[in-house]
């Protein structure tokens, strides 16, 4: 999106008309993530973060550092879907889920420790996380995915 160097700490947040439990399910269960995360089937559990692309290839396979349903999830990140990005060092993704007044939940994603992964930092900035969060909001509020990803289509 821009020519500047992407930041080593990136913060994104969105208010979603849903309960913390619904948000938690949407970020930890593959049947949900497939509808908004570039088609990836992501399973986040105490044992790890595992992401499969629509074609079944491994997009991510990292440890889970913190697992506190339905409030906080911290896991490692390496973009295995791109050989150039996969070579970079592991970064970290933190999901924070905070209930607000009026049935609203605030979801914040912090992608940090990107100092030694500048290409990954660039690739997830701009549209990267933003599309994930706006897609997640749309899915939870309307039940419809923002973008249809067909089987076998890599993003």
């Amino acid at each position, binding site marked *: 999106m821009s020519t500047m160097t992407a930041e080593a700490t*990136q913060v*994104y*947040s969105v208010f979603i008309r849903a309960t913390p439990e619904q948000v938690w399910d949407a970020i930890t269960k593959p049947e949900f993530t497939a509808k908004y995360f570039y088609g990836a089937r992501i399973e986040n559990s105490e044992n790890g973060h595992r992401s499969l692309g629509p074609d079944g290839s491994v997009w991510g396979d990292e440890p889970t550092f913190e697992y506190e349903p339905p409030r906080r999830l911290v896991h490692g990140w390496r973009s295995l879907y791109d050989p150039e990005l996969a070579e970079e060092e592991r970064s970290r993704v933190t999901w924070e889920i905070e209930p607000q007044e009026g049935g609203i939940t605030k979801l914040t994603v912090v992608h940090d420790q990107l100092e030694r992964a500048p290409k990954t930092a660039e690739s997830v900035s701009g549209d990267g996380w*933003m599309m994930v969060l706006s897609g997640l909001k749309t899915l939870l509020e309307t039940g419809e995915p923002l973008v249809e990803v067909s089987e076998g289509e890599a993003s």
Partner: protein
Amino acid sequence: MADDDRVFKALADPTRRHLLDRLFERDGRTLTELESELEMTRFGVMKHLRVLEDAGLVTTRRSGREKLHFLNPVPIRLIHDRWIDKYTEHRVATLADLKTQLEEHA
């Protein structure tokens, strides 16, 4: 106030747009850094940052003793999806109709 109203209100001020541009250039800044680039009191900058934070356009994180301000572009994307796409789509549709009409009469 609805989410969209907060975002539009926050963007309807040149100082606040300037603050967003500064954070776009380099993210994760302290109040002191942001204040040094503006001809405004610390209190004034704080007030503007608060409006941006309420609209969800700025998120703050603690890092040791410092409070860092981060640009959160998600609400602008949502405004784009909700307001801009809708009208540009309409314009494209109008052109498509015009093309059909002109071709019918050709």
